[in-house]
């Protein structure tokens, strides 16, 4: 299968070159063709005989007391099979990944716009929607708490109180002071992960009283455990089957949609399907934390950082979700990839009645990066130093200590990354092309005028951690099976499009020398592999696949090695043939297997981390990845239109396992960062989500995406990571918004302290 896809993809290649094989090659994803042609089935394409359609009634208010819910009229409508509310939840009424604080259905209080109140199953989607609308809910509307700064003093929105977590990081001498002090206040908006396919799923009841959920889950075992607790069932009687995932840059979790689906299937005894509307999708799933940051940087006259003081306030929305982890990342990386001898960082995550916040790629790290890089620009301007030079002077390196007291043991080529992007040639001005061909800010049909356009260049340096932090048990299990010369990988790690399935094939090809490798679909009958986020799967699941493959290799070669009296290490497998180092022995894999089937299962568990203590100290992270971005922007300084011309990226990747895939991941991350920098902000004045659609919420289009130049991929292997590879997706998202803001700052001379950058912040009024 893989061979055909690979060769068919390149018809111009007349000589029969061998297809990409093993690590370091650009093996194509097995499903690439199906996805391109539109035949790949996603969750919304599922079908079952006799299925019912579900619809969910969501709260129109951000904060209200539920006085009464009357479902009688909806339940009596023809075609309606079941209506469920909080009274129909047999198990735990509340759920949550880390803290069970979120009700399946609101019972007495709604805490955000779009919180589920009830769900309906009917024989037609329209009937279901109409029945949901016919449920009479009486609300007593309450004043919403929408300003996170007010959450501290406001009446508790939740029995657990409004403060989700507070980290007061103390590192060094509080009395230390620098010759130069710069301060700033920064605001980061609410980015939506905006998966291209909205949430969807199918629940099928089982004869044993259990239920199967077919959903685009990114963490099937956690979703299964949530569902089982909610249904009051043993986890073994709930099965989550992962369908095609149509885009995931966040936890693809909207339990508000998945949990009612299974409830309805259990209640009706029929398969039940739901496809969320785009509006529901925007309301239900977690967003990036809107963040307020206050910074004070102290430096000496030569530009060396002396002390960083910061206050970081994350708006967690109504429920805890991933706010605690996001805050840990924000506080730990509040100074960025710089050496800071003294740091005092206060971080809070609070509850509000705003839309829910949770894990979105680069959470916590992205917000602080925009702020500390703005501070670095400010410092450079104050001292009169080149911004890149100032950054180089303070750059972190292996062996330096983070403000959490953790020593950076992994490769940290921060200075090298910055030099690479700084020294890359700048894009030419379009001087030699006719004026009407210039792509000006505002677009080809926009109002741009060359005379009003200024160009700016800015730098961003960013860092993220990889894997779960603070003592999270990071473990993954994988099984490799070989039969008839064909290998199969069985692992519950979800390929969200990030390419894990392709990587698993490459690992097995590399280890076993077999070309044909299949990856089985993921479900919860397999051992857990954990969530598909933070670049985990390359590390833990990739590591587990490699170990299992090596165990199979030993099983295969042991009898031969014993027969010839040599170690298995002296034998090698290529193109289905086993040869010894001296060429004396040569046999085929098929012969050696002799009709046997070989299985091996292995686990990978990286070395443990510890939680941050009460002063924010601790070895909380397994590994870190770094990135440098140079942004070149054009700004129409009269109307504030911004076009990102080029982003040059240099990234610390450890080792390149699949060059094409890696580049695609970096380009995708950079583009998501451009969205966060310029257009993506889900507005929710007074807690009510405005324009929950893809016209109002402007994702970058092909015209908005800049030229992305991947200048350098620094391959310094991380010795503790399997293959030495680092996660690559999150760090460009973290770094590129800061670089774009820096470039706009350079073009306009304005402070630019808010993301996304509003046009009025990029205007230069006359006289400047």
């Amino acid at each position, binding site marked *: 299968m893989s061979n055909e896809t690979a060769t068919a993809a390149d018809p111009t290649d007349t000589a029969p070159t061998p297809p990409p094989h093993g690590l370091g090659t650009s093996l194509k994803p097995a499903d690439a063709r199906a996805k391109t042609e539109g035949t790949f089935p996603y969750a919304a394409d599922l079908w079952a005989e006799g299925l019912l359609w579900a619809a969910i009634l969501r709260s129109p208010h951000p904060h209200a007391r539920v006085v009464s819910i009357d479902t009688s009229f909806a339940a009596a409508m023809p075609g309606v099979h079941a209506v469920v509310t909080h009274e129909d939840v047999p198990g735990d009424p509340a759920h949550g990944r880390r803290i069970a604080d979120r009700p399946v259905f609101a019972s007495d209080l709604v805490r955000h716009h779009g919180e589920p109140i009830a769900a309906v199953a009917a024989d037609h989607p*329209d009937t279901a*929607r109409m029945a949901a609308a016919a449920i009479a809910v009486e609300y007593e509307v309450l004043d919403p708490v929408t300003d996170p700064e007010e959450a501290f003093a406001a009446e508790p929105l939740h029995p657990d109180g409004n403060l989700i977590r507070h980290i007061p990081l103390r590192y060094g001498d509080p009395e230390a002071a620098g010759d130069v002090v710069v301060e700033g206040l920064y605001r980061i908006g609410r980015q939506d992960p905006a998966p291209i396919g909205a949430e969807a799923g199918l629940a099928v009841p089982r004869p044993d009283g259990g239920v199967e959920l077919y959903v685009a889950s990114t963490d099937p075992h956690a979703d299964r455990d949530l569902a089982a607790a909610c249904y009051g069932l043993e986890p073994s009687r709930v099965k989550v089957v992962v369908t095609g995932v149509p885009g995931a840059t966040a936890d693809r979790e909207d339990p508000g949609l998945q949990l009612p689906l299974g409830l309805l299937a259990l209640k009706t005894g029929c398969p039940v399907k739901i496809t969320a*509307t*785009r*509006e529901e999708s925007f309301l239900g799933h977690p967003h990036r934390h809107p963040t307020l940051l206050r910074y004070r940087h102290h430096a000496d006259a030569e530009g060396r950082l002396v002390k960083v003081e910061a206050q970081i306030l994350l708006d967690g929305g109504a429920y805890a979700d991933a706010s605690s982890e996001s805050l840990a990342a924000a506080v730990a990386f509040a100074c960025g990839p710089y050496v800071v001898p003294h740091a005092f960082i206060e971080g809070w995550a609070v509850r509000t009645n705003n839309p829910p916040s949770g894990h979105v790629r680069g959470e916590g790290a992205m917000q602080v990066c925009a702020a500390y890089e703005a501070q670095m620009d400010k410092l450079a301007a104050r001292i009169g130093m080149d911004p890149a030079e100032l950054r180089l002077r303070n750059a972190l390196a292996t062996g330096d200590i983070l403000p959490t007291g953790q020593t950076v043991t992994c490769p940290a080529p921060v200075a090298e990354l910055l030099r690479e992007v700084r020294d890359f040639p700048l894009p030419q001005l379009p001087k030699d092309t006719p004026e009407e061909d210039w*792509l000006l*800010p*505002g*677009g080809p*049909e*926009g*109002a741009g*005028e060359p005379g*009003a356009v200024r160009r700016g260049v800015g730098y961003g340096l960013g860092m993220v951690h990889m894997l779960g932090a603070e003592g999270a048990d990071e473990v993954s299990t994988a099984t490799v099976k070989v039969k008839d010369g064909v290998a199969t990988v069985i692992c519950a790690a979800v390929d969200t499009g990030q390419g894990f399935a392709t990587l698993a094939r490459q690992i097995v090809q590399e280890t076993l020398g077999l070309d044909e490798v299949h990856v089985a679909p993921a479900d919860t009958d397999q051992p857990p592999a954990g969530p598909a986020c933070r670049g985990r799967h390359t590390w833990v699941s990739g590591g587990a696949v490699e170990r299992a493959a090596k165990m199979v290799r030993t099983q295969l070669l042991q009898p031969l090695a014993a027969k010839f009296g040599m170690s298995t290490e002296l034998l090698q497998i290529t193109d289905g043939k086993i040869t010894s180092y001296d060429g004396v022995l040569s046999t085929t894999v098929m012969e050696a297997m002799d009709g046997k089937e070989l299985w091996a299962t292995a686990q990978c568990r990286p070395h443990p981390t510890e939680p941050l203590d009460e002063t924010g100290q601790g070895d909380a992270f397994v590994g870190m990845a770094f990135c440098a971005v140079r942004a070149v922007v054009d700004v129409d300084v*009269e*109307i*504030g*239109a911004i*076009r990102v011309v080029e982003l040059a990226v240099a990234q610390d990747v450890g080792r390149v396992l699949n060059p094409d895939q890696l580049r695609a991941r970096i380009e995708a991350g950079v583009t998501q960062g451009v969205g966060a920098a*310029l*257009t993506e902000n889900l507005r929710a004045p007074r807690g009510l989500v405005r324009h929950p*659609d893809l*016209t*109002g919420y*402007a994702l*970058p*289009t*092909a*015209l*908005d995406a800049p030229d992305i130049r991947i200048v350098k991929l620094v391959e310094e292997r991380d010795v503790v990571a399997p293959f030495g590879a680092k996660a690559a997706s999150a760090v460009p998202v973290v770094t590129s918004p800061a670089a774009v803001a820096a470039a706009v700052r350079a073009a306009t001379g304005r402070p630019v302290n808010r993301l996304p950058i*509003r*046009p*009025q912040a990029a*205007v230069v*009024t006359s006289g400047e």
Partner: protein
Amino acid sequence: MLLPASLDEAVEALAATPAAVPVAGGTDLMTSVNSGQLRPAALVGLGRISEIRGWQYQDGHALLGAGLTHARIGRPDFAALIPALAAAARAAGPPTIRNAGTLGGNIAAGAPTGDSLPVLAALEATLIIAGPGGSLREVPVSHLLAGMDNLRAGELIGFVRVPLLHAPQVFLKATGRTGPGRSTGSVAVVLDPARRGVRCAVGAIAPMPLRPLEAEAWVASHIDWDAGRALAPEALTAFGDYVAAACIPDGTAPDGTPEQLSPAVLHLRRTVAALARRALGRALA
């Protein structure tokens, strides 16, 4: 779903099924249908009415069919005729929208951000509306957009009559991005050398396009129409500010005292001023 082949048939179909909703490109209507906000009992598709999908000349005017798509209007032959309308059509959205969306639909939907609307307002276009029994009535586009004269039950916009001015016209639009997006402010400027007039309309900042009539008259009196339409650069800048101040006046509290505009509104005013200045500058260049 009914698919009439002529305007008369379409009007008849609407009269026969009063609950039916007419649909042309569907770029506006279908989003409401798909999101479940609108459940029309029946649809009258206008896509097969060939008489409203073209245009013809009519004593110094162009008679544009309401079924002309943005894509068709954006083509060079059309741009030579009514340049500002062509520019607005090219800016109306991504190709998928431009291929389906129509001029008549843009008018009937009447969205504040409709890109063709300020151009039609500046051109002082007239709508020719077909009604029951083969009746035709004429309504200035501004009357319809202002709600002074609405479409009545069973009526359809058949044609739009636009004067051919044989002079430069400019449409400029500000959006929040480089790719196609909703307008945050737009300006159409058309020159009418025969009457020595300048006509300008500002879109997307109010429920309907705004005409700064005093600014138009003032700037027209300062253009030297006989010497290559020359205008002093200061007058050009003043025109932009005049238009912006006319369309976004200083705020006044209910008791009549002046009120500071919010930074966002001030920015919008600055944007309108820049667009109006650039638009007239390009028209006179």
